[in-house]
């Protein structure tokens, strides 16, 4: 059992996603600290990948810019090490299977434990392929966070029964990115999850404003926000960190 449980003990969980190294390492380090200090219950740290097939245009772009500016897996680890001196908010890494696999899954996951990372989110690892990562995650005390999608249907019960950490509910078909309206019946999905597990669930993909965050968190245990936060970073300016802080506070309050 990891620290992820704690993230869901302070009311509905606000879970921001941040692409490490975007737009550069120094800035993303400050953004992560700011987000942690202003109400994030759990932070999803994205390790950039050259071909992020689950991401929409905003996060895809962030991945490529971060890579262009020199981020590597080792540099992400170093950055997290620095952040951990000041911040004890639970962290999970979100990245693609090849980033973990190519580093050496055991070396990657044992480093995660040393850095105080509580879980892994791998969007290209479905239930059927999880064993090769799950066993190592358990060895080092990390949770492997499963996904449930609007198309999961008969799979939800199986995934929920085997879940740990939290369940990431994908709000809509397609890739990450803001949506005007989320049309999936989240409450139906949550109902099946609740029937099969006590593990909390949070909704992501397409949540861009406090109203949507409130609506999604009301149906589940938390809300995950990625692209909208990257937009705050992109708006930039001298007050960027203040704007990010304000956005996180608003989101957490809205839940």
């Amino acid at each position, binding site marked *: 059992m990891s620290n992820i449980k704690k993230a869901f003990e302070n009311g509905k969980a606000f879970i921001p996603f941040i692409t490490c190294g975007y737009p550069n390492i120094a800035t993303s380090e400050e953004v992560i600290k700011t987000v942690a200090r202003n109400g994030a219950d759990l932070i999803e740290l994205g390790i950039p*990948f*050259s*071909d992020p*097939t*689950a991401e929409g245009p905003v996060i*895809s772009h962030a991945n*490529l810019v971060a*890579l262009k500016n020199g981020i*590597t*897996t*080792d540099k992400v680890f170093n950055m997290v090490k620095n952040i951990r001196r000041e911040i004890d908010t639970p962290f999970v890494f979100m990245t*693609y*299977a*090849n*980033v*973990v*696999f*190519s*580093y050496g899954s055991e070396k990657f996951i044992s480093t995660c434990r040393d850095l105080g990372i509580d879980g892994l989110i791998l*969007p*290209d*690892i*479905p*239930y*059927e*392929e999880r064993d090769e990562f799950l066993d190592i995650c358990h060895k080092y005390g990390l949770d492997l966070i*499963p*996904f*449930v*999608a*609007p*198309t*999961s*249907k*008969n*799979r939800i019960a199986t*995934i929920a029964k085997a879940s740990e950490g939290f369940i990431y509910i*994908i709000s809509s*078909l*397609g*890739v990450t990115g803001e949506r005007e309206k989320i049309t999936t019946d989240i409450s139906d999905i949550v109902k099946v999850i609740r029937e099969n597990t006590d593990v909390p669930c949070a909704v992501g993909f397409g949540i861009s404003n406090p109203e949507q965050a409130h609506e999604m968190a009301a149906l589940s245990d938390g809300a995950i926000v990625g692209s909208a936060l990257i937009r705050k970073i992109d708006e930039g300016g001298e007050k960027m960190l203040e704007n990010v802080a304000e956005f996180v506070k608003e989101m957490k309050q809205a839940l």
Partner: protein
Amino acid sequence: MSEKRGRFGIHGGQYIPETLMNAVTELEEAYNRYKDDPEFNAELKDLLNNYAGRPSLLYYAEKMTKDLGGAKIYLKREDLNHTGAHKINNVLGQALLAKKMGKTRLIAETGAGQHGVATATAAALFGMECVVFMGEEDTKRQALNVYRMKLLGSDVVPVKSGTATLKDAVNEAMKEWTRRISDTHYCLGSCMGPHPFPTIVRDFQSVISKEIKEQCLAKEGKLPDVVMACVGGGSNAIGAFYNFINEPSVQLIGCEAAGRGIDTFETAATVAVGKLGIFHGMKSYFCQDEFGQIAPVYSISAGLDYPGVGPEHANLHDIGRAQYVAITDDEAVNAFEYLSRTEGVIPAIESAHAVAYAMKLAPTMDKDKIIVVNLSGRGDKDVAAIARYRGEDIYE
């Protein structure tokens, strides 16, 4: 060979987002239901024979054989199929399957444009909607094929992300599939991606080796000694190899694109320079950096310009059943010109990679040996690019 959950040795698998899992399961179930269905197979055979023009010729390249002075060279003329390449074999199979599944829309990725054209063709024939994703770089290299797809009634989406080539087209097609699953079949063009695609594509392409076997026995009274084919994702090669995998006397050789050379960064020779990884739904070999970032590969051939290789090829390499060799741009262009001049057959620049290796290997073999080169496609689409390679300022 184990095919449990689509594994070929350690390769293959289903490394895809949860959103797509039920879609690939539905596809697998449908495929298992129809693959041995006599009615389905009769329909497919009719399409292959009466629409695509199968069986394709096994042509004895006598002048080439005499010129090289070694093994007898046969060309399996997939270039003579309707739409000019082997791609139609797989596309007709998948489109028919999609129709049986009640899908009304096909999406596809394309590199050189051959698979895109084949998919657009099948969509026109079946009255289905069609959207083809093509790297922007490739839309320039193969402008004529873009227009051809539009002529056939398809939309072509130029992909600007990443390296704007084949891998990025696959990324975008996969993303599009996650957006719209219920009415859409992703008609994947090579023996790659998540299970069941590598198996489905191989089965639909295996007609190539089935015919080679029958034709070679009829003409020569024995099996070929060597079968060779170019390998990007590897669909024409797996089609040419499949019925010979259990014939140990037949040597199988895949010809990868070395680009400017395997000791440069401008290469697409995955087996030669790649390492084991997980990408595009499969475990296989990929060109990548030390942190697993997929490498920006290069080849003069848009169809071989892909950083991975199908999982069955990765396994055939592991177990030593097939050899994979790397052919440079220069060698391929020379072979392109040589075959045109010698046999009056203009090969696709992809297929010219296999011709190039035959030119190296044949002179080292006895005259009673037989090489079959799978001529996967015709080269009309490449003429302008080859002219430019030779310094002539020709545009389509």
